[in-house]
């Protein structure tokens, strides 16, 4: 039973000479089997939370703790975190010219699994996972994310999720920029991952529409660098109706009507 435990997390970024605090005491525990939706207005620090957990060098943890099954995540390098079972589906996946998707996937799977997957099984596994996400097999020979559309990049993030099978997956605005079909395909991919094992999901989103495809067990409202309200699925319905104005004082819809 995997548990990701975030306690009183404070995170700053180095902007110019001054440090700017973005996360101001985040407390959140995600257990295997649970899906937590983190919802909040733009600039509330949702993405910072995901990048800080993954270990992006731009963000500095000033206090608090993050543990995965009791292990100190903050002491680990970025790749150690991934091998420990954390996965971040990024909002803006990075292009890596000259590195083929197939080479990248195999290198990543080898690192995460601790041994190179047997070639015959691997080819079948990748083909199957690509087919599940309606990804043209030709993408395997293209450079990682290079020239991919927004939707193609997101499908490939979920492809990596399917192949790397982390204990806890953090999905950072995976729904942004997706059309209706892509949103369905990507959501089905996340649901398949959830059903495949005892895993936990942190789903970061601005809008409620992805929650029609992926049912959260918990919904947290994120504003001003911390969680300001937690509840069940009904909280999302309330945000849908009322937006974030209650939390920010500004009119910002949770779904643009």
């Amino acid at each position: 039973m995997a548990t990701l435990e975030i306690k009183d997390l404070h995170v700053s970024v180095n902007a110019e000479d001054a440090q700017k605090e973005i996360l101001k005491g985040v407390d959140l525990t995600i257990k295997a089997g649970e899906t937590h939706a983190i919802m909040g207005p733009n600039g509330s620090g949702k993405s910072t939370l995901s990048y800080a957990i993954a270990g992006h060098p731009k963000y500095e943890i000033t206090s608090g703790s993050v543990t995965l099954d009791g292990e100190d995540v903050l002491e680990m390098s970025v790749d150690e975190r991934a091998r420990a079972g954390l996965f971040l589906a990024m909002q803006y996946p990075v292009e890596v010219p000259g590195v083929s998707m197939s080479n990248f996937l195999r290198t990543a799977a080898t690192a995460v699994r601790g041994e190179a997957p047997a070639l015959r099984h691997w080819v079948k596994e990748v083909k199957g996972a690509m087919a599940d996400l309606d990804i043209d097999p030709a993408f395997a020979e293209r450079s990682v994310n290079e020239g991919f559309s927004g939707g193609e990049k997101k499908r490939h993030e979920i492809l990596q999720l399917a192949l790397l099978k982390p204990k806890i997956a953090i999905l950072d605005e995976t729904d942004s920029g997706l059309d209706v079909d892509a949103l369905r395909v990507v959501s089905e991919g996340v649901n398949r991952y959830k059903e495949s094992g005892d895993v936990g999901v942190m789903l970061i989103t601005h809008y409620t529409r992805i929650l029609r495809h992926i049912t959260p067990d918990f919904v947290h409202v994120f504003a001003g660098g911390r969680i300001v309200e937690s509840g069940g699925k009904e909280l999302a319905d309330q945000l849908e109706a009322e937006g974030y104005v209650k939390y920010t004082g500004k009119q910002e819809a949770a779904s643009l009507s």
Partner: protein
Amino acid sequence: MATDTQQHGLTAHSHGAGVPVASRAAHFTSYDVEAFEVPGGREEIWRFTPMKRLADLHKGAAATGSATVEVSAAEGVTVETVAKSDERIGKAGVPGDRIAAQAYASFVDATVVTLPKDARVEPTTVTITGPGEGKVAYGHLQVHAQQFAEGVVVIDHRGSGAYADNIEFVVADGAHLTVVAIHDWADDAVHVTHHHAKLGRDATFRHTVVTLGGDVVRVTPVVTYAGRGGDAELVGLYFADAGQHFEHRPFIDHAVPNCRSNVVYKGALQGEGAHTVWIGDVLIRAAAEGTETFELNRNLVLTDGARADSVPNLEIETGEIEGAGHASATGRFDDEQLFYLQARGIPEDQARRLVVRGFFQELIAKISVPEVRERLEAAIEAELEAVGA
């Protein structure tokens, strides 16, 4: 006229701000050493070069040794050793700086490699071994692809010492010549070389320069066209380590209508004092209507203390062209790429190697000789191992 300028990466190149650069058309050439002044290092064409490390090649250093030239010729290819008086020598181009003129004046024997008319031949390898540590040598090589000949010539430089030479590529009408020049010198070596390519009507020239080893390596490839339909592609890969100076100065002289050129050089640098220079000149003269040209240089700076200079120059004297453009960028290692790969569990050193290999991949893929391709991949791998990157 379609001119476009693109910028990629972090640091854009300068457009010669403030310094009026003389037209490339006015560039002086001569077979006579004394026609050139001894350069002091402030001249436009020398200002990036560490003159003190040139073993006096620019000051008339006498030959104290000789380079060994060995040719492993494919069937049908002829190899001759000829004197300077041979009428074929010097046909592809005239020395464009004092060291090239010195090399021309000082060489004793020239090697001429001929790919026969109408034939497609297997790859030929020319191995040039330097004169040895502390010695100076001059040389001359000509590769002649006769009409409709088709083939690959690999020129492999290795060994020690100071060496200056001119290499001529005579690509006759309709011929397809592919050249891969590898500079894999020992750490002490100094090599200053001029490549002169003359392309006949509808000739195709594929020229790849690989520079991996040596203290100072300065390569000046010059392409001229003798007839319409000439097509030149110049590719370069270099990897400079601490203290190494690698300089590449391709010049494409479009003086004939309806010719094409494409120049792509990519380099990586690591270590204190690693220095690379890329000066890419393209001149489209008034007569060269219908020209199509593009040049690109990208540099990947892997560590502090390394420096890449990159200056593309495009001069256009006619509006009636197909297209012309240039781009240049020098960037630090992309931490976002590294983060992305590491976030998928790939350890940092392996992630770095993936990114650097990826950076060179498009150029390595263009090399048609599998042995050369494999050697290059292995060499890049070894470079990366060396710093534990």
